[in-house]
């Protein structure tokens, strides 16, 4: 085998997060190699619902509320530019979306939570609270079991497959895309890093870990902390139907092609990404309670996928204190945050460091002080 390859940035992980960062770095003229394990990876990128979602995010961490809001507001331009560059339609739509509450109590708590969140955030994102009759005016298909909803016009949807493909398509023109390259280890090497794969080794000036759940194995060698865990979600999709759903609902969306996709479960199931009859049944019942006409739709597929979850559900953006140039990027909202990862985050990584404003997103927040 010849000596190690050389690259400026090694981006380890080719899901939506890694592809967004690599796309953003390459657009800034950086030399980038993107390592993608391939279709055997868990790939939250392929299993998710496809929501661009703002409502309710950032409770307890206003910086995350602001980050989410800026990223979501950037989606129109992002979808237009990436769509034009790639020649692919990302199917981004933003008619606004409801979060349905099934009791008065839940609606009241939800309204209070969103009000508090709005008060703490610097970037505004308005919302409305409405009862069943209010929803019905916009969405006549709503079921009587729905007590009310919060509605936010910043929420939208996209096609996550098209998003990932578009990012990789454009990246490949400027950078080095390595599909089916599973990274076995990353270690410090002189002032840079050594990336090992079964197909050979790379020496990089900087390394960005964007490997989702795989970050757990890779981070320790760089003295980075990745306290993340898999949280399973189960999703169903119906046959293609004529478009009828004019707005998003937090756990239900109709794709541009016509299939209705729904799922809302959260389970601690380790790395088991199979579906279970109990959750599939409960999910279908909940969807029919929300939109009774769905009882007449045939479900054609179901699947499960694993969210990449930090202890507080919010992103970790961190640089290794011991090995400068090694970064960890792990989030569970890779779709919503894609414009941010390709934009401001890529710019910061290109400049070479995360300034103090990034501190709220460091994994230091999970460190229990020694007593």
């Amino acid at each position, binding site marked *: 085998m010849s000596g190690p390859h050389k690259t400026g940035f090694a981006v380890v992980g080719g899901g939506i997060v890694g592809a967004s960062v690599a796309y953003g770095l390459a657009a800034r003229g950086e030399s980038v190699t993107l390592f993608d394990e391939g279709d055997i990876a868990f790939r939250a990128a392929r299993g998710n619902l496809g929501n661009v979602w703002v409502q309710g995010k950032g409770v307890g961490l206003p910086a995350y509320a602001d980050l989410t809001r800026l990223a979501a507001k950037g989606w129109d331009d992002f979808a237009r530019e990436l769509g034009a560059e790639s020649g692919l339609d990302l199917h981004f739509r933003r008619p606004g979306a409801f979060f349905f509450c099934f009791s008065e109590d839940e609606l009241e708590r939800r309204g209070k939570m969103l009000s508090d969140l709005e008060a703490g955030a610097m970037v505004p994102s308005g919302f409305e609270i409405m009862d069943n009759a209010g929803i019905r005016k916009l969405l006549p*298909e709503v079921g009587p079991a729905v007590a009310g909803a919060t509605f936010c016009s910043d929420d939208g949807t996209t096609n996550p497959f098209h998003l990932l493909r578009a990012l990789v398509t454009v990246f490949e023109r400027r950078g080095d895309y390595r599909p089916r390259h599973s990274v076995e280890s990353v270690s410090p090497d002189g002032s840079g890093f050594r990336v090992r794969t079964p197909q050979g080794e790379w020496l990089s000036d900087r390394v960005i870990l964007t490997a989702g759940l795989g970050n757990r194995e890779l981070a320790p060698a760089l003295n980075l902390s990745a306290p993340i865990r898999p949280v399973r979600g189960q999703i169903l999709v119906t*046959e*293609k*139907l*004529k478009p*009828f759903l004019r707005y998003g609902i937090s756990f239900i969306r109709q794709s541009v*092609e*016509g299939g209705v996709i729904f799922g809302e479960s959260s389970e601690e199931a380790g790395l088991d990404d199979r579906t279970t009859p109990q959750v599939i049944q409960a999910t279908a019942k909940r969807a029919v309670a929300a939109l009774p*006409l*769905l009882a*007449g*739709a*045939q479900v*054609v597929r179901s699947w499960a996928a694993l969210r990449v979850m930090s202890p507080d559900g919010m992103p970790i953006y961190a640089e290794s204190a011991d090995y400068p140039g090694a970064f960890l990027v792990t989030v569970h909202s890779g779709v919503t945050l894609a414009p941010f990862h390709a934009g401001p985050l890529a710019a910061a990584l290109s400049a070479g460091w995360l300034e103090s404003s990034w501190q709220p997103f460091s994994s230091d927040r999970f460190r229990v002080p020694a007593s």
Partner: protein
Amino acid sequence: MFRRLELEEFDTSFSFEGRPVSAREGENLAAALLRAGITALRRTPRSGGARGPYCMMGVCFECLVTVDGEPNRQACLETVRGGMIVEPQAGAPEIGR
């Protein structure tokens, strides 16, 4: 293009797009349509292109038809019943109507 291996003896009929199709009670609907020379069973929701039976085992969803008013039935998983009314599936069906 398609024919039965054994002697063709039809004992019933159904209609496709208003036109009678001879068949055997209990045979596979997609097979009966193919044998009658009918290969385009639906139009796609996106482009309006013609599609017909492909996998013949329930996974490709190319053979969708409306059977007795119920849309999106997979012809390859349907059994012929005398007198059934089969219509091509034009695009995606409307729900709740």
